[in-house]
């Protein structure tokens, strides 16, 4: 579904933010991209909907190069939620903000209303539809930004740091949204710094450093002991469960559930 071929991107100031990435993500995959700030994660995802154009290499969506396609068209296929909700909110009412995206895609009338309602319900803002977005706290504005892209119904959804500023209820909600998107066959790609969220929510983890992919695999592979040196080189630390599991010689246990499971198995 998404194919990055030999992708490289150089900013006008000469920074080589992406330095040869080959990555292919299938329909319905749920992928986390992790790495330090400045490792090229955000630059990478901006290529998926054409906001940035490759300096070298190509981006293919369903086998078709995105080259020459307008962002306004690609937006119907790849929805991108930016990290800071305040960089997009312009409407005086929550509902109007969420309608903006689907309206741009040509949705009108009951179809539009249904899409907006569904998105608001998913993020738990149904009762705030008439509120002023700036009367909501930061964490709810962030959910609003998520809803405004969910409502566009794109086959691919990219989330940049979705859990920043969320409390545990918010994180659980986002995990639920990712799971239901996946079960609906939509592709979810998320950039995150929250290792526990990554280990528990995603089936595939891509680790980036200095514009390259250094690790790519399941959470068990990426957080397993063999990968620790590579992780350490990007200042990332595996979740506590993984480290305790390794210490106990139980293999790779990236999540709490997997650690408990391994402990039970080890005893039995």
């Amino acid at each position, binding site marked *: 579904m998404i194919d990055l071929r030999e992708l490289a991107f150089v900013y006008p100031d000469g920074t080589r933010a992406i330095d040869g990435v080959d990555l292919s993500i299938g329909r319905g995959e749920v992928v986390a991209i992790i790495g330090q700030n400045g490792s090229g994660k955000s630059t990478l995802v901006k290529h998926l909907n054409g906001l940035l154009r490759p300096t070298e290499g190509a981006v293919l969506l369903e086998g078709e190069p995105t080259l020459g396609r307008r962002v306004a068209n690609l937006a119907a296929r790849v929805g991108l939620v930016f990290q800071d909700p305040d960089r997009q909110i*312009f*409407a*005086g009412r929550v509902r109007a903000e969420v309608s903006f995206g689907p309206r741009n895609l040509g949705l009108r009338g009951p179809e539009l209303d249904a899409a907006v309602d569904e998105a608001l319900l998913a993020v738990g803002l149904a009762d705030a539809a008439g509120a*002023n977005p*700036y*009367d909501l706290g930061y964490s709810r504005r962030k959910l609003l930004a998520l809803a405004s892209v969910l409502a566009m119904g794109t086959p691919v959804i990219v989330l940049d740091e979705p859990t920043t500023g969320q409390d545990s209820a918010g994180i659980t909600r986002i995990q639920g949204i990712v799971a239901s998107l996946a079960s609906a066959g939509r592709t979810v790609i998320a950039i995150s710094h929250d290792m526990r969220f990554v280990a528990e929510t995603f089936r595939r983890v891509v680790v980036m450093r200095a514009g390259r992919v250094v690790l790519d695999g399941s959470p068990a592979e990426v957080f397993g002991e063999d990968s620790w040196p590579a992780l350490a080189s990007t200042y990332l630390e595996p979740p506590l469960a993984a480290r305790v599991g390794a210490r106990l010689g139980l293999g790779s246990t990236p999540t709490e559930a997997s650690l408990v499971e391994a402990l039970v198995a080890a005893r039995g």
Partner: protein
Amino acid sequence: MSGRWVRILAGVVATLVAIIIGLSASGTLDATPDPETGLPAGAHRIDSIASQFTTRTIVLIPIAIAINIVLGQTVGTALKIPLYLDSIGTILVGVLAGPIAGAVTGLLANLIWTFVLAGTPFGSPFAWPYAIVAAEIGLLAGIFGYYGFFRNRPNTPTPQLVVGTVISVVVLGALALWGILPAYTEGVTFFGDLASVDPIFQLVAIAIAIVLVLALVALVVQLLVRRNLGVAYVVVGGAICGVISALISAPITEIFFGGVTGSGSDLLVAAFQQAGSTLSNAVLQQGLIQDPIDKTLTYIVVFALLHTLSRRFTARFPQGERAVGVEEG
């Protein structure tokens, strides 16, 4: 020739006076007036000027200046629309913080633009002569804000709506007839002998009249459909600001820059001059087309923005509650 120099001198004096007012207004901040020390008469006014410069206002000023400089360039370029919007920040400060704060922002903006930013890619050595125009824009916005021109007035009752519509049509019509039109027709209005005017300018006058009538009709329709008299206030305010700005900036443009600003609107100046206007008239004719449109659109944008903002937020600025109103419902 000597007449022109008298005008320049008057302009310089006016600028100096404005700077002195601005500096003394901000200067009073250092010694926050103490009500117990028995200040002389008139201290009340200084107090109210000082109260326009809270920390929020001070923090808002550089941001407003940046908005002026950046927004005009990026939005117009991104959407390929000839919208200048280079005074949104100044107008916002005027409305939210008060007339003096608005005027000082305008003045400072152009001085900073010229001097502080001189060596950077954002600086402009040609901005300072317009400092007085920027100050006027901020001042007017503050005054309009003080008198509630930016308040939202949804569901205006019909009698009020009709009276308001009539008044705004009369004001705008008068502004057009005596403020804009005579600049194209050597002082003749539609009530005078238009036939004595050069045919080209007869056409220009008629074209302008048609555009104005269409704009008025659109305004009236908007008013009747939305039943929100706030729109009328904003359009009237924007049009007044535009005409005054054009009147002030035209001589500046003529005297300092030979009538041009280095933007696309210079083509209009060339066209009017080719059609027979003197340079000073051509500059004014160009300004009277561009400025009222630009300022009216800017006022509408500012109005929309102010009402997108949470009232709880605007209320934290010195004039916010008065200008935008308080939370409805």
